[in-house]
Every structure is written in structure tokens, then in C-alpha cells.
């Protein structure tokens, strides 16, 4: 796995997905929270300034009724200068909208449709510079076409609000990042654990039943699962070893009497003259024992391959195929069969050399047996590296398409093949050995002939 794939792999893990979902849910929640806070703050802060303005307007209206214009103007000027009432703004204009009194330089342009409340901006000195501050204000008419504006600086409120917003948004973004980061980290952890599990599973499938999944101390669900799988593997190992024991006793119980039979026949033969009828009978007994032995060997090897309890090691497939071709070359040449081969170098598989050799030998035995004199056999080892393919092809009679599946079963001999010697277990053994090595066995038409492919 390259780094990119590993990264993409993490994105596919369930913890990372859960983290994404939770981050989205959290973001929506945070947005709702921000909205609610904003709403509440606005109500409290705006409410209090509005009350202030409302009270001031009320006061001025009352003063307006009792004071002369000049006294009113003075009052406005006084209020405008008052440092205690920070942020309060006043403006009194004449009918031509010229300022008469107050601390706002000009009557703001106000949309006629706006109600009594409106917002406007004023440049306020701030140290050496001036800043635009937002004001919330009410206006009301004065006698003689004069107008009055009373307002309050709400810039600070805006500042507080935007500060709060920024704080909240930063918090949300940080939380999202932490959530995604945490999800990614968890995903990697899970991926590492899953990777360890699948590595062990691969070894187990290759036949190393003693392997167990790594279990950490923590009691989380993965470790619990791993422990349970390990218990299951213990059972499988016991069962497989049990099968092996049964196989061994079956072998013992069959080989021992066969051995006695062979010993007895050979012992009796040694005292008989060559060519005598009795000796010929015993010779045929001995030949039958040989035949039974080779069938028994094949059956046991098939069963052994099927239990998967065979030791495996790296096998140089290139060398093996080349050596098998070399072993069979003289015998095919004697039959006038051309044994052609093309063997790629450097192909290696994890497996059992003896069983692989036996499988190849069976294929070559078959090819030589069924190919007519002067025929043609081709052995190919294709593609070096991790997925080599071995092909054995002949131009014999082949196997009809509808019977190819059947011949891989045990002891199936097609009627056409009965005139040839053999136990009928050759291809079954090839099939079992192929399966043991996790390879694919394909029988095909070589047009004419049989094409057997073992793809690792």
C-alpha cells in the first residue's frame, strides 16, 4: 500500500465517516447556537439602549414644552458636552436642516419610509484619527419646523457582537478540525488493526493454522472480536489436526496390511522358480499392491492437500517447471512428441515443492499418455513476479467441454481414457494442489487438445 492509498484507505474507515457525520451535526448545532446567542445579545443590548433613547426623547419632549427655544438649545448643547452620558448623540436642525445644536455635524439622510427608529453613521474622533461609528436614533419634530434627533452610539455593541461571532466561529472551526483529525487518527488505528488482522488471516489461509490475531490489552470491540476469532481458530486448528490424525491412522491402517501382503508375496516368491505359474500369480499380486499403493498415495496426498496442513515454503517455480520439463523431455522425445517450453525466470510462489512437482508430473504424464506419437506438448510459465501462470497444452484428444468439471472430481475416468493406464486421480490431485496454493485451475480447449492452466 502506497502512502496515497493508505490515506484514501483511512477516508473509507467507519470512524472517519462517523467523525465527518458528527462534525456536520456539530457544525449545524454550533450555527444554531451562534444565531441564538446573537438574538439574545441583540435583545438585551438593543433593548437597554432603546430604553435609554426612549427616556431621553420623553424628557426632551417635556422640556420642549416648558423651555424657550434658546434655553432648549442650551440644554441640547449641555447634554451634548456631558461626558457622563457617553455615546449619546443629539442634533437639532432648523427647517432647512441646518444644525442648530448638538454633537452630530449634519442631519443624516433618512429614508422617509423608515419608522421612528433609524441607523446612521457618524465620524467620531478616536485618538488622532476618526472612525465611522454606527448610531441608533429616534427623531421627532420641534415647534417651528425644527427637528430633533436623539441617538446612541451602538458601534461598541456591534464590536462586541462581531468579536463574539468571531470567537464562536473560531471555536466551531477548531472543533471541526479536531473532530476530523480525531476521526482520521481513529481511522488509522482501526486500519492498522484491521491490517494486522487481514495479514494474519492471509497466513492462516496459506495453511499456517498456528497463527493468531494480535490482541491488545484494551477491552474494546475490536479486541473482543479478535479474541473470539482466536477462540474460533483454536477450534479450527483442533479440527484440522484431528482430521490429520484420522488421515494418519487411515494411512497406517491401510499401509500396514498392504506391507504385509507385499512381504508375504515377495517372501513366497523368492523360493519359486522364475516363470513358474505360482510365481506369476504372486508377481501379479505384487503388481496389484504397487497399484494400490500408488492409488493410496494419491488419495492421501489429495486429502492432505485438502486439509491444508502441509508445510509451505518459498518455491522457485521457474526452476521447478524447467526441471520438470527437463525430466520429461527424454520420455516424450522417445515417443516422437515435441516437448516445447517457454519458462519465465524468477517466478516464485509460497507452497509445497513436492506437491507442486507431483501436480506438474501428473499433467505431463497425462499429456504424454494422451498425445499421439509425433504430437506436440507445450509448457509455458508466464509472467514472473507474484502471479505466475503455468500452462500445459497438448494436441491429444482433449476433454469435451461438458466433462471438464467432472474430471476434476475424484476417480473420474472418462470412457475414452479407460484404455490408458492410471488411477484416474491425476487431475483430482492437480485440482487439490492448485486449491491448496490458492491458484485457479482452468481446463480449456487447445484446439485440438487439452490446455490446462494453473494461475497463481
Amino acid at each position, binding site marked *: 500500500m502506497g502512502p496515497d492509498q493508505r490515506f484514501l484507505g483511512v477516508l473509507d474507515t467507519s470512524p472517519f465517516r462517523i467523525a465527518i457525520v458528527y462534525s456536520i451535526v456539530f457544525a449545524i448545532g454550533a450555527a444554531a447556537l451562534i444565531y441564538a446567542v446573537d438574538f439574545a445579545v441583540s435583545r438585551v443590548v438593543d433593548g437597554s439602549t432603546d430604553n435609554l433613547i426612549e427616556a431621553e426623547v420623553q424628557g426632551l419632549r417635556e422640556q420642549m414644552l416648558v423651555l424657550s427655544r434658546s434655553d432648549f438649545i442650551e440644554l441640547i448643547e449641555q447634554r451634548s458636552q456631558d461626558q457622563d452620558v457617553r455615546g449619546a448623540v443629539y442634533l437639532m436642525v432648523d427647517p432647512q436642516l441646518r444644525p442648530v445644536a448638538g454633537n452630530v455635524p449634519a442631519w443624516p439622510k433618512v429614508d422617509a419610509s423608515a419608522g421612528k427608529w433609524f441607523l446612521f453613521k457618524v465620524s467620531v474622533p478616536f485618538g488622532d484619527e476618526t472612525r465611522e461609528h454606527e448610531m441608533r436614533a429616534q427623531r421627532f419634530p420641534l415647534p417651528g419646523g425644527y427637528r430633533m434627533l436623539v441617538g446612541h452610539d451602538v458601534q461598541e455593541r456591534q464590536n462586541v457582537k462581531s468579536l463574539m461571532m468571531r470567537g464562536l466561529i473560531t471555536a466551531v472551526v477548531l472543533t471541526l478540525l479536531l473532530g476530523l483529525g480525531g476521526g482520521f487518527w481513529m481511522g488509522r488505528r482501526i486500519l492498522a488493526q484491521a491490517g494486522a488482522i487481514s495479514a494474519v488471516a492471509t497466513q492462516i489461509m496459506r495453511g499456517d493454522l498456528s497463527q493468531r490475531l494480535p490482541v491488545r490489552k484494551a477491552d474494546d470491540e475490536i479486541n473482543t472480536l479478535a479474541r473470539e476469532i482466536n477462540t474460533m481458530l483454536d477450534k479450527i486448528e483442533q479440527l484440522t489436526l484431528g482430521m490429520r490424525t484420522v488421515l494418519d491412522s487411515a*494411512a497406517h491402517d491401510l499401509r*500396514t496390511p498392504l506391507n504385509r501382503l507385499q*512381504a508375504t508375496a515377495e517372501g513366497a516368491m523368492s523360493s519359486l522358480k522364475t516363470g513358474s505359474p505360482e510365481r506369476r500369480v504372486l508377481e501379479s499380486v505384487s503388481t496389484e499392491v504397487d497399484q494400490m499403493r500408488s492409488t493410496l498415495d494419491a488419495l*492421501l*496426498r489429495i486429502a*492432505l492437500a485438502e486439509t491444508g496442513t502441509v508445510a509451505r515454503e518459498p518455491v522457485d517455480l521457474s526452476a521447478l517447471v524447467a526441471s520438470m520439463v527437463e*525430466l520429461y523431455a*527424454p520420455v516424450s522425445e522417445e515417443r516422437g512428441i515435441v516437448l516445447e517450453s517457454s519458462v519465465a525466470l524468477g517466478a516464485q510462489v509460497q507452497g509445497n515443492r513436492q506437491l507442486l512437482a507431483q501436480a506438474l*508430473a501428473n499433467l505431463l504424464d497425462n499429456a*504424454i499418455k494422451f498425445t499421439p506419437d509425433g504430437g506436440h506438448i507445450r509448457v509455458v510459465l508466464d509472467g514472473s513476479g507474484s502471479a505466475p501462470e503455468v500452462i500445459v497444452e497438448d494436441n491429444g484428444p482433449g476433454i469435451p467441454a461438458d466433462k471438464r468439471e467432472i474430471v476434476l472430481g475424484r476417480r473420474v475416468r472418462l470412457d475414452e481414457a479407460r484404455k490408458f493406464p492410471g488411477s484416474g486421480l491425476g487431475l483430482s490431485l492437480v485440482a487439490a494442489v492448485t486449491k491448496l496454493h490458492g491458484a485457479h485451475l482452468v481446463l480449456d480447449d487447445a484446439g485440438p487438445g487439452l490446455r490446462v492452466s494453473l494461475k497463481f
Partner: protein
Amino acid sequence: MHILIVEDDEVARDYLAKALREAGHTVDVAGNGMEGLHMASSIAVDLAIVDRMLPKLDGLALVQSLRATGRKVPVLILSALGDVDDRITGLRAGGDDYLTKPYHMAELLARIDALARRGDTGNAEASTKLKLADLELDRMTRRVMRNGKKIELTAREFQLLEFMMRHSGQVVTRTMLLEGVWDYHFDPQTNVIDVHISRLRQAIDKDFDKPLLHTVRGAGYSLREDE
């Protein structure tokens, strides 16, 4: 040769003992593993034939115990189990050769012979030149000469001849050749070994009066000088 047979199957043991005595060996027998270990440790035997599945003490455990006490006596293990792996475990336990039941007496005798002479041929193993009559094989230069004439052999024929020369005078079976030269442990359905031998015979015997490579009926082949 003094041979110890440790085998619990009476029929097989008696026949084996009889056949070995007929072949001129002195034979002692044991019917179980403990007795076998005791005899192998106390009697100076030249070779032991040990069945793998024995009562009281398993055949493999017997061989292991024997090796643990430093006894180097050649051991041939007889097995009625499967094969493939059993052969490896048998040899790893300290066995020198391994034969699966049922076997032919000729096969067993040939293997006993090879095991017994392995000690003698220790020198031949080390020396680079092997010689039989007028046939010479140089393992360093990979050259084969007969009667001063160079003989061209393929790499495999050379290996085959080398194996035969190291076992010259002995009977070598087809399975011994397949194991010793190709390192394969199965019975080919076709007579692959015979054809290889006949090619080798063509190469070394064809142009010469005295044949060196002989067929031993019912057993295998033998490379020897006929007197």
C-alpha cells in the same frame, strides 16, 4: 553388517529379518520403541531400521533420543503414514533415509546398502575426481573421460553419472535416483528415469566393449565393472 530392526508388525518384521539374514546380515529385532532404544544404545549395530509408529516409544522419539546420546548409527525410518511432510519430519528427527510402506524388499536392500557405505564413501564425497575402471569424472572441471576419450554429457546426465559413480557397485533404484538427482519424492506414471538412464548408457557405454551401467532386474540400476 549388524542390523537392528525395530518394528511392531510381526509379519513384516519376520520377513524383513529373514530377507536381511539371507542377504548375509546379522539381525537383531525389537518389537517396541523402548526395547529398540535400549538395544540400539547397548549393542554395537551398524544400522537400524525403525518403524515410525511403535508402542511404548514412538519411532521418531527413539531416533531423537539416540541422536541426543551421540549415537551416529545410520537409521532408516519405515513409515505407514502419509508422506510429503512426514518424510521431512522423519529426516529432521535424525533419520538418514525414509521409506514408506508398502515397500519392495529390493528397494529397502538398495537403501540399506547405500546407507551402510555412506561412511566409506566419505572420501569420495570430498574428492573432486571419481573413477571406475576406465571411466573418470572430474567434479571441478565437470569433465567425463572414458579410456582417455572425452564424453559429452548434459548437466543432468553429469549429475546422474556422478550419483551412480558415488554409489558404484551398489544397486540404485529409480526412486533413489529421482530423490538423489532431482530431489523429487513421487512415483512418476511414466518411465522417465529409465529413459534418462538409457541416454546416459548411450553416452558412456555405446562406443566401448565393456558396459559399466547395468540393469538390475526388479530393482534398478548398477554402475559396476563386471569381472
